[in-house]
């Protein structure tokens, strides 16, 4: 188990390094923030001076090595646009994204998993078809569209919920639904397949032959067995949620790292973008390791064999 985890971490480090490198060069190829920073009337000479002072006239490879060196010392650097340590910028945004991701997971898991179980148990019924339509509807809407319409309906017309921004739990509801709807279908589909898979196994028939009802068999035996692939999906979906958060946070003016990422790319705030990508990779790794731990908790074959 430990060796397995070490291997995973090693792989993840290689991946993260690759991600960082890719993003570093992509960002540098897209220009630099100097033009965005200077007042409109600045001359070419004045722009060149600022670019030099900011260090963007150095060869790319020099900038790259300097960045890596700084990173290895645990320093994410200073945002040249906001003139603040990148770590503190990120630190102020991460809680919001965490909040949003948690809210969306509640929506996605809370609807997706029961729907998936129901779809498997009542396979071929009208209920299955209706649930399928529901979860796929959630996945088939552009988040910004459903977001805008929700804002219009619940925020502007009905006035039940804050239109956007951060204002306690009520303001979390709409963004969570908009974002959670995306993952809901993945959870439902995976749960359905996993439960169907398990339902066809002999131990379910054996449990029923012992006098258990189908419901009791699902609760006592199927649920835990089916949970294993679903946990894998959950770990992957966290990544998808972070990607979806980019648009949702922009629509709802939610001050998380998704919104920050778009703003930072637009502003060519390189170090902030790189730090966000680093953070996302980190979350990926942690989630996958967490999934491994959950497997071990659920499955005695993993727990006891290590």
């Amino acid at each position, binding site marked *: 188990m430990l060796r397995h985890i070490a291997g995973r971490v090693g792989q993840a480090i290689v991946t993260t390094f690759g991600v960082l490198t890719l993003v570093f060069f992509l960002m540098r190829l897209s220009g630099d923030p100097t033009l965005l920073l200077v*007042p409109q009337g600045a001359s070419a000479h004045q722009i060149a001076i600022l670019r030099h002072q900011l260090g963007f006239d150095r060869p790319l490879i020099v900038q790259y090595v300097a960045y890596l060196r700084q990173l290895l010392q645990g320093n994410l650097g200073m945002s040249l646009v906001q003139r603040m340590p990148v770590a503190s910028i990120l630190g102020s945004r991460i809680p919001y994204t965490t*909040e949003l991701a948690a809210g969306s997971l509640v929506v996605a898991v809370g609807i997706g998993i029961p729907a998936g179980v129901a779809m498997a148990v009542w396979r071929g019924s009208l209920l299955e078809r209706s649930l399928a339509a529901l979860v796929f509807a959630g996945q088939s809407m552009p988040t910004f569209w459903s977001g805008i319409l929700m804002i219009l309906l619940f925020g502007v017309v009905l*006035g039940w919920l804050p239109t956007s921004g951060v204002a306690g739990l009520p303001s979390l509801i709409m963004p969570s639904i908009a974002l959670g709807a995306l993952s809901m279908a993945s959870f439902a589909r995976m749960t359905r397949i996993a439960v169907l898979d398990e339902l066809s196994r002999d131990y379910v028939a054996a449990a029923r032959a012992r006098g258990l009802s189908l419901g009791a068999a699902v609760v006592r035996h199927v649920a835990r067995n089916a949970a294993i692939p679903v946990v894998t999906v959950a770990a992957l979906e966290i990544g998808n949620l972070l990607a979806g958060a980019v648009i949702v946070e922009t629509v709802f003016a939610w001050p998380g790292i998704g919104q920050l990422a778009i703003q930072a790319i637009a502003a060519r705030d390189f170090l902030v973008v790189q730090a966000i990508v680093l953070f996302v990779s980190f979350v990926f790794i942690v989630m996958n390791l967490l999934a491994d731990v959950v497997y071990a908790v659920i499955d005695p074959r993993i727990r006891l064999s290590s």
Partner: protein
Amino acid sequence: MGIMKTAFLAAAITTIGIAGLIGAPAPALAAPKTKLTVDLPNDVATMDPQLQWDTDSYSVYRNIFDNLVTRNTSGKIVGQVASSWHYKSPTEIVFTIRNDIRFQDGSKLTPADVVYSVERITNPAFKSPQLSQFDEITSAAVTGPNEVTLTTKSPYPVLLAQLVKLSIVPKAYIEKVGNTQFNLHPIGSGPYKLADWQHGVRSVLTATPGYWGGKPPFEKVVFRVVPQDATRVADLRAGVADIVRQITPDDAKSLQSDHAVKVLAVPTERVGYLFVNAQWGPTKDVRVRRAIAMAIDRKGLISALLGGYAKPVNVVLTPASFGYPTGIKPWPYDPQKAAALIKAAGAEGARLPFLTSPAYPQNIIQAIQQMLDQVGLKVVIHQMDQASYLRDRQGTPQEAGSLAFGLWSCACQDADGTIWPLFHTGSIWSKYSNLAFDKAVDAARSTLDAKARMADYHTAFEILHRDVPGVGLYQADAIYGARDQLQWTPTPNEAFFIMDMKWK
């Protein structure tokens, strides 16, 4: 698990904290208004006033800091930290500094702080993007008990207009805490001080007791970040916000039917213009450029798309700026003649790349495209993000496209800040070269004699009118929406002084 738990906890605490801060939106009518809520489209980029001058940032920090000089509501430059000034020579200007100003930490504002502020922003090592606005200044020195003298390279007529943007920062405090801490926890001498700044969410200012300029009208001012136009308007209607910055002309029109709110609009020095590349492509031919000028129905654009919240301009400058010429008539709107000119130039069906970014009004750009297509051109819109737009627009004549829409403001209300960078030979914005024009604008930039400058600019604008390296379209309004009780007159330079506001 630990990480998740901590994050959740942090999130929960944030949520509770925010819920407490926002409180009830609708205040009781009887109690005096103590808290003003403002919706801005963007967060403050930096609280350090010497790092940039974007509208959202200075809407906030300009209430924390006093500047050396400022503009009054009628647009005239008046003293703020300086009580008066005089030119000792064409390159030396002497300011008398008020001695009754204190910073928010209680320390006195001295001439040394003024000198420090100038030296800080002009020090290349500080990497201020604003350096270019002040790099004509060669030295700043304390020359008397309450006196500071600034020296410029050459006679520099726009100096005072540029100094409107110079905030005075506390030397001792910055030297103690450093630039990063100063940016996060700024201290100024203005009517408000920063109480809380949640990045991307809000900044909260509270009134400075005993402010030298009088009692601030509200105890507390909350600036919220609300990027969506529609949401700012909804907040205003719902009473969640008392005043919102930057609403669209369409929203302004729809707000007129709501009696609880009002629209505050003022013509600014911001000019909407169409750049026409005189050094590359079909528009190298002056006939094509003139045809473009004649193909655009500016009045139609303004009435249909800007809801009247703009005024047509005759040149690439607004009347709010020094140097706006009176006698020059624009090219008349005449699509037939334009089409004929294009035919004569053999440019029928010529492809004109039209650069733009999401920062500019899309409907105007598409309307211009149709107007130009109707006279026989083929305009192709290239929409890219702002950074790429600037890179291409400021690149070589080939990269800059044939056309580009721009909204120009030099924040100095002077022709020098507009047509010099836009059209002077060798400027990064200019894809045009005319030595007579260069001579006129160079002359206007190096004399303090207002009459002579006016004459120079008249000459310059006549040349531009003939050569059409750009088409002035309109003077844009700054449009604010406010609750009806708020008394305030917005200014052409888009200052956002809480001190000038009142609640009725």
